[in-house]
């Protein structure tokens, strides 16, 4: 039966896609841990991981300093970068599907800035809410990102009922600028050391330690689960909200959960690493180019690729001008902004031939 073979082909296609994405992530993770000011040879790295994490009875006794570097510095750093990259990429993929807009991403929509405001307020005013303690930072970041996305969408809708792509982006940029100004104001008022603050704002995953992984992990899991549960709805939403409703999607509820899940992921990522732009834009775009726009696979694949991508970006950021470190946001923006321009240019051209 021909259908059988087509389906086998499709199954193989997706198996291969996941395999490739996983290999990429594994490769990024390995060299991310291995490379640095002190390099850890890969066999040694495997020994350390095996011994410290899986408690395998390994006879070799790796160097204590290297073990320390891997376990206390590199591994948490790589894991954090991976989690942040994954969160931003999957959130970007979801926003793009929901808003039918390949230019949407937590950064261009202003959500990252919203989350930053929450984080900056928490950090610089040293707020600690009762009961949630350590989670005050991500909680306020997430709250601010949710508020921001709703403000952006409400404002965009006021400007243009049909919520054209460009309108939403423009609104996102307006909000972004406003919120950045607000952050600058706060920084000016606190009068702390400027370089550190700006470093944080540009995004960094350095010297965060295991604590931060604990902060982001629960939000990452919740947000990702909600989005993965809505992939088919995202596919339907690509045809417009009315069409999705005709197809049987409970649009209001699904839209709300996708927006909130995306904001949770963005808020948590910003809380631990500052604003890292364009990951949510570039990665889903790349994945879509390679494997197509089906959200059922787009989301998980973006997650894997985004994770690997940010680990590599972090590696570049900390090695390229060693011993100094570049903020990771610089690297992602250097890659992301031209990509953004390219996508915009392509859209314009398509739009013109259509008309």
């Amino acid at each position: 039966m021909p259908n059988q073979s087509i389906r086998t082909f499709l199954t193989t296609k997706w198996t291969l896609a996941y395999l490739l994405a996983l290999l990429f992530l594994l490769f990024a993770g390995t060299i991310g841990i291995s490379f640095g000011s002190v390099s850890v040879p890969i066999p040694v790295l495997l020994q350390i991981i095996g011994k410290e994490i899986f408690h395998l009875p390994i006879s070799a006794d790796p160097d204590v300093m290297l073990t320390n570097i891997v376990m206390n510095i590199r591994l948490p750093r790589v894991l954090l970068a991976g989690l942040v990259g994954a969160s931003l990429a999957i959130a970007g993929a979801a926003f793009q599907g929901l808003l039918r807009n390949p230019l949407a991403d937590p950064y261009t929509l202003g959500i990252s800035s919203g989350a930053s405001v929450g984080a900056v307020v928490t950090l610089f005013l040293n707020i600690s809410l009762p009961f949630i303690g350590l989670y005050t930072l991500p909680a306020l970041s997430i709250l601010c990102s949710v508020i921001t996305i709703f403000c952006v969408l409400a404002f965009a809708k006021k400007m243009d009922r049909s919520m054209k792509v460009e309108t939403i982006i423009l609104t996102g940029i307006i909000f972004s600028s406003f919120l950045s100004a607000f952050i600058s104001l706060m920084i000016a008022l606190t009068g702390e050391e400027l370089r550190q603050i700006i470093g944080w704002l540009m995004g960094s995953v350095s010297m965060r330690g295991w604590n931060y992984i604990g902060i982001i992990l629960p939000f990452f899991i919740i947000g990702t689960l909600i989005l993965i549960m809505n992939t088919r709805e995202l596919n339907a939403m690509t045809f417009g909200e009315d069409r999705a409703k005709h197809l049987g999607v409970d649009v209001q509820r699904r839209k709300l959960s996708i927006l909130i899940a995306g904001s949770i992921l963005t808020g948590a990522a910003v809380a631990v690493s500052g604003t890292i732009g364009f990951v949510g834009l570039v990665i889903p775009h790349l994945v879509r180019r390679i494997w197509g726009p089906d959200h059922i696979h787009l989301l998980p694949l973006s997650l894997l690729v985004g994770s690997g991508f940010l680990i590599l970006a972090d590696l570049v950021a900390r090695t390229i001008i060693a011993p100094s470190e570049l903020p990771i946001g610089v690297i992602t923006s250097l890659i992301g902004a031209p990509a953004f321009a390219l996508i915009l240019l392509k859209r314009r051209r398509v739009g013109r031939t259509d008309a």
Partner: protein
Amino acid sequence: MLEVKGLTGGYDNKAVLDSVSFEVHKGELFGILGPNGSGKTTLLSMLSGVLDYKRGSIRIKGKDLQDYSAKQLARVIAVLPQHSSLAFSYTVKETVSLGRYAHQTGWFHSWSAEDEEIVQRVMKQTGVAEFQDLHFERLSGGERQRVLLAQALAQEPEVLFLDEPTNHLDLSYQKELLDLMRKMAKEQELTVISIFHDLNLAGLYCDRLLLLAKGEIQAIAAPNEVLQQDRIQEVYRTTIEKHPHPALPKPQMFIVPQKHGGDYDPFEINQSHLTVGREMIRLNAPHPLRTMSSGVTGSGMGWHRYFVNRHVHHDYDCDDHLAEMADYLKAHNIDPQETVGMMTAVFLDTAAFKLVKAEGFSVFIIVTAGVGNAIDASLADRHSWSSAPGTINTWIFVNGHLAEEAFIHSIVTATEAKVKALHDLQVLDKVTNTYATGTSTDSILVAATQRGTTLQYGGTITPLGKLISRGVYDCTAEAIRNSRKRNEAL
């Protein structure tokens, strides 16, 4: 299947619809008509659950629309949208597969063999199966429309809503789509509710029509009743004419373009347009004329510019005289589509013609007559049937505007005048030896310029009838005398 009661509502507190009530039955093809801004699309949005309404109720299968969950509703109704844009490029099959969304339940929404089978079936039905792996955005407007139809059908709905479904489709797909809808309505009892812009398509395909204007129902009934000339003119604020479909008992509405200076100036058909040759008598009109005729080509009612009466040998016997005549005309650079063509065995130099005038209009008449096989109509059953070329061909050109009934009156009047001429010249039926009333294959043409004076009737004592009787009587008599003379000379 669908009951709407007192439906009121619209956008932003502005009521577009005002207490609209109607019912649609299972398996019905129901059309919604109305001018732009009448509330058609608003009504459809409310019926398909996309737009909330203020007052009234919509019940589908006896259950209130608002009591359906989104998925439940999508298993009962499906919508074919007017246009659709895609942010990302899915393949045709992926697009159609989304139609199964509402039928897939459980955590993993697994794709069952049944889903696959339905998707393949609807893609075949709508003719998109062969490009199922192509990308949606690469398709033409018409193909996209069919893919979206497949998507809607994959929902296996009981009610299908269409919003101006034929908008992007060329003629053959319009017909195919609506034929498919009718078939599904009749065979699978699918209820189809569709907005139409094209009154004629709606009239052709729908079982019942709803006419909306300014958010209120103007009429809801069978097409023939809804599509009344006066009502449509009033609702659409334009001039239209209603005529029956030529092949079906369905109404058709025609728009009448605004007249521009010069376009409709009266003109006169007379001898100057006529050429009498050995092989054919030909009349070229400067503009198409409204015709009713029994010629070989261009018979029945129509609009024609060229008129040909062709001489053929009296043994002319062609199996397919229609095709032969068309070929003959083409060979002489005359478009058969625009021509009323007749044949005669009579020599054409015996033709008689005459322009007769009355106040405000005139009639130009041309007759060729041979009475070799003259027949008494009252005793026609004594003759065996044969299709010899017509021997009295009568052409009547009226320089005036004839009503349809006037065409028929004119033919009757002309026939009576012809019979009288034959009688006065004592033409006999050779078989029965009684007075002949005509020949076995007489042909007649009434053509009118449709400009100038309007002539409603053509009976013998009407102004038109008087001209026709006089002219036809004189010309027929003269043509018979001419042809007798020529025969004697031979």
